């Protein structure tokens, strides 16, 4: 019998700003790869990579793809917040990335193999570590609070949110900038091409002290599954349990955003984030960003809703993900 997680206080954490870097909605091929045996797509690919104002352009062009996507999302979330968070010691940075900095890792190793270790690429090595996006965010914005990177496949972003809530509740930080990012790569396309259309992107939530009128992150839960596909009643129990711990019933939830269009839980009106960005480990971050903006603005983009027009104003949105590799996650954002 699983021990119940401590009741999460209903106030949760306020979402002070949201950032979202989406790929092109039309899948396309990657320009090139190191070998003709690698597949190039089609996949959802981000166009021009973001350039942020806080770092010199040359310094950014030297960074890896995941770092640049993460910086772009982070900057947006910070810009959306009327007052910049601070002081620096009180801003934590937590990143979730399923596969990390693939382009830099591949670039370093391809060069190493092809050149028999001559003429290495030190900048690529430095950028290849999984915590490179989190490190670069802290350097760019000067944030000196706790800094972590979660790298657990398809629950990486949810774990980052969980950790943020734990830090905020314990008073170990005042703000938490939580970013989810994964980049497209010919290696992932080649490894997974039979199964799905891959994508890439980044999303960021700036969490902080509760403030009147702002959407709040009330709950997040992520766990591995005993079986690949749990039976529907077990799924429902998982979602209901998380909602109850946040002081809500399923009837209170206006919309549930899922990864794929097949999912649906507890009769809640459905939407999907998968169509906007393709599949990648931290795609749920896109779902959370859409949920946060949805609760704030009362609407979500076209193409997200699955059950026709919304039948009521948006004030409470759940984000649910069931991944066939064996993970389940649920989050709730509400006024």
């Amino acid at each position, binding site marked *: 019998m699983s021990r119940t997680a401590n009741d999460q206080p209903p106030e949760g954490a306020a979402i002070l700003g949201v950032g979202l870097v989406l790929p092109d909605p039309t899948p396309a091929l990657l320009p090139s790869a190191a070998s003709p045996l690698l597949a190039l797509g089609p996949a959802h690919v981000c166009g021009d990579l973001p350039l942020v104002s806080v770092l010199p352009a*040359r310094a950014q*062009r*030297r960074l890896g793809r995941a770092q640049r996507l993460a910086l772009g999302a982070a900057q947006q979330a910070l810009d959306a917040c009327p007052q910049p968070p601070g002081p620096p010691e009180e801003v934590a940075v937590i990143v979730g990335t399923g596969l990390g900095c693939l382009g830099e890792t591949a670039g370093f190793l391809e060069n190493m193999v092809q050149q028999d270790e001559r003429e*290495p690429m*030190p*900048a690529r090595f430095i950028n290849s570590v999984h915590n490179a996006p989190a490190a670069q965010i802290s350097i760019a914005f000067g944030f000196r609070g706790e800094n972590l990177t979660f790298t657990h496949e398809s629950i990486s972003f949810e774990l980052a949110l969980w950790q943020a809530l734990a830090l905020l509740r314990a008073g170990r930080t005042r703000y938490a900038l939580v970013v989810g990012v994964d980049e497209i790569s010919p290696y992932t396309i080649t490894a997974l091409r039979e199964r799905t259309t891959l994508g890439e992107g980044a999303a960021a939530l700036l969490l902080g002290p509760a403030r009147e009128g702002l959407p709040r992150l009330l709950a997040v839960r992520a766990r591995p599954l005993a079986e690949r596909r749990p039976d529907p009643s077990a799924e429902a129990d998982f979602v209901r349990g998380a909602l109850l711990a946040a002081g809500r019933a399923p009837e209170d939830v206006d919309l549930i955003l899922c990864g794929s269009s097949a999912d649906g839980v507890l009769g809640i009106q459905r939407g999907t984030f998968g169509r906007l960005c393709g599949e990648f480990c931290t795609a749920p971050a896109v779902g959370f960003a859409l949920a946060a903006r949805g609760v704030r603005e009362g609407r979500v983009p076209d193409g997200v809703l699955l059950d026709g027009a919304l039948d009521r104003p948006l004030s409470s949105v759940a984000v649910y993900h069931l991944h066939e590799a064996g993970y389940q996650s649920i989050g709730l954002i509400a006024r």
Partner: protein
Amino acid sequence: MDELVDTLKQQIIEALNLEEVTPDQIDPAAPLFGAGLGLDSIDALELVVMLEKHYGIRIVELEVGRKAFASVNALADFVRKSKGPCPGSA
């Protein structure tokens, strides 16, 4: 001798992706790091690789690199000393 300095400027621009910089904008006597071009320690590592690639010189100690990269002139002297009387691509 000037030819080596000019070549090195081109190679530095290429190795470090200094898109907006032209060779005549680089003062060969000026510091490359901190002030001047404002390069940093990661650029220094890339220049170490550049020397290996074009001149077959392999620097293994940071301190040697620091002195060699003080300025383009210092780098030209370093290359000449390491290669002997006829500097050029390896």
